[in-house]
């Protein structure tokens, strides 16, 4: 990511991390952070730093995710889990309208979400980049989404710079990480004695002033640079983005689509864990309960959908993408190619979730090079 280096860093002792949570709660934020649960790390509400994945890290491989002890006293050594910021701005399921009978006609009313102030701790650079992608999708078109617009400004983001990558990460290729350089309110770099803290917004400055901070030792700053550089340099996966939309458009009939279509289960896991996938269904649901004299009230609900679902491109009994290979191609060409035509940015931020959470371990950083090879 580009942009000026954020404000100078200060130092927060490890023992004082709880003060950050308290400062956020005192300002009316529900605090969300990574917590270990059911064998993974997920985002959920936290009150105490003890709820964070202390002394844990994760091992990620295509189709594999395991939490293990890291033998050190850390809070943020787990890079990521299946959850991202997406559900906090684009709810997996929500009401858009309420519709009630009005004589022989009807009345439709928008239902705006109750958007509490949320502070999310442990956001990675790739997740910030994904949020910027979502901002373009939901806010910058001709019809900005009122639900997204209600939630987005209520977020307070505490980024954590990545000093370690998972094997599935490729943020360096997508130019989104491992360091958070913009889009956060506060950014932390975790080291053994404590955290380097930077503010990235007026709201972040204000919270920072409430923390017991010391000047950052020069040695800590040097160590931070080298740890970030090492993280970037040792990242295991890469994706060559050169000419990506053009290459994909030229290879719509490449035999690799059939090959990957034979491996893909079309389960949609990749789209559920993807921090930018935005496809959704909209439908009316009658409200349960006794219909009153006027008739049955209903709600318009929207729910995450996936281009891997069989009926995603179905109309009038005609399915434009009947085969799994058609649907995988739609997903990949959209994510890496046509997304750029539509929104001026790639739909991929290199977080690697689609690789880890694919039950058969399909890896887009392998599929793209295969598509670059002559087919046949």
């Amino acid at each position, binding site marked *: 990511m580009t942009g000026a280096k954020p404000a100078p860093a200060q130092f927060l002792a490890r023992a004082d991390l709880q003060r950050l949570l308290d400062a956020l709660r005192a300002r009316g934020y529900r605090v969300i952070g990574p917590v270990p649960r059911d064998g993974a790390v997920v985002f959920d509400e936290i009150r105490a730093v003890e709820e964070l994945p202390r002394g844990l890290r994760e091992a990620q491989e295509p189709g594999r995710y395991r939490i293990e002890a890291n033998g050190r006293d850390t809070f943020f050594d787990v890079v990521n889990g299946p959850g991202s910021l997406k559900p906090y701005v684009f709810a997996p399921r929500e009401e*858009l*309208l309420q*519709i009630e*009978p*009005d004589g*022989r*006609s*009807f009345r*439709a*009313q*928008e239902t705006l979400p109750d958007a509490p102030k949320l502070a999310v701790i442990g956001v990675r650079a790739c997740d910030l980049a994904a949020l910027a992608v979502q901002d373009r*999708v*939901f806010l910058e*078109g*001709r*019809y900005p*989404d*009122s639900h997204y617009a209600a939630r987005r400004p209520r977020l307070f983001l505490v980024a954590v710079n990545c000093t370690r990558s998972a094997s599935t990460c490729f943020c360096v290729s997508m130019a989104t990480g491992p360091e958070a350089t913009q889009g956060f309110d506060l950014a932390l770099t975790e080291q053994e004695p404590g955290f380097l803290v930077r503010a990235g917004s007026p709201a972040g400055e204000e919270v920072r002033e409430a923390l017991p901070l010391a000047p950052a030792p020069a040695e800590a700053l040097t160590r931070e640079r080298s740890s970030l550089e090492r993280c970037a340099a040792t990242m295991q996966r890469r994706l060559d983005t050169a000419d990506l939309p053009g290459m994909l*458009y030229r290879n*719509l*009939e490449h035999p690799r689509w059939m090959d990957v279509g034979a491996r893909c289960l079309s389960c949609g896991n990749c789209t559920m864990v993807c921090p930018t996938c*935005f*496809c*959704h*269904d*909209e*439908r*009316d649901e*009658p409200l349960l309960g006794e219909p009153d004299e006027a008739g*049955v*009230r*209903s709600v*318009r609900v*929207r729910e995450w*959908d996936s*281009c891997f679902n069989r*009926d*995603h*491109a*179905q*109309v*009038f*009994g005609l399915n*434009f*993408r*009947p*085969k799994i*290979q*058609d649907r995988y*191609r*739609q997903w990949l*060409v*959209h994510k890496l*190619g*046509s997304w750029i*035509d*539509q929104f001026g940015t790639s739909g991929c931020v290199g977080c690697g979730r689609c690789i880890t959470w694919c039950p058969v371990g399909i890896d887009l950083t392998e599929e793209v090079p295969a598509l670059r090879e002559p087919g046949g």
Partner: protein
Amino acid sequence: MSLGNPLLPEPAEIVEKRSYGPSIHAYRLRLLAPDARPRFDFVPGQFNMVYVPGVGEVAISISSDPDDETLEHTIRIVGRTTRVIDGLGPGDVLGLRGPYGSGWPLQEARWKDVVVVTGGVGCAPVTGAIDYMFRRRANYGQLTIVHGVKKPSDLIHRERFESWRRQADARVLLTTDQPDRAWRDRSGVVTELFEEIEFDPSRTVLLMCGPEIMMQYAIQNLRRRGLSSDRIFLSLERNMKCAVGLCGHCQLGPEFVCKDGPIFRLTRIERLLFTRGL
């Protein structure tokens, strides 16, 4: 509630229902709110989301003339929502939101000859455009309308085809795959009529809507005869839920058919259109 929310349907009363056989009906709708009609000003080829309260929405093109006070939607009964619409008639109230998407290039086609090729219920998105051109007849050159149906009973808007046919300076060719004894027009598939169409590629615009296989054949044929892709316009059908380019279902490569289409100039979608499974 914010005014102008693109998802809010506006109540509209059915004032007329014309049936074309058991499964296709044309509904004339009058918006109930007295001030709502200007917000529904449209260009022929655009569509509305037609809403059955408590049931769901379907994307349906507007088949009336834009100058009409009422809005007409020609609806084929094919799914859950349209099956409910099937049972509705004058006095019943539906919801409308729109108009969405792109329209036919009626300005660009001025002073040019226009060829319209449609198949089946695909004539509905173009009927408003044809009416528009006939009402401004002096602005357009030769008009040729080619329409094919599987069975004679699939011929919808017959009265409009007949009235266009009665106009001077227009040619209307109708055909069916399965003619019966009452059928007075051509027999065979619509593509067989292309050889009969005479046109000057340098001053012709082609408007098309129908099965994609029909459009593919028409494009091959007419391009071979000198019509360039930038003079060919077609209306596409895709799954649409939101109609505002957000739900993701209607994508064709980089295009959201709901907002970038449904009417496309062929040059824009040529490389994608006939790739199977896209």
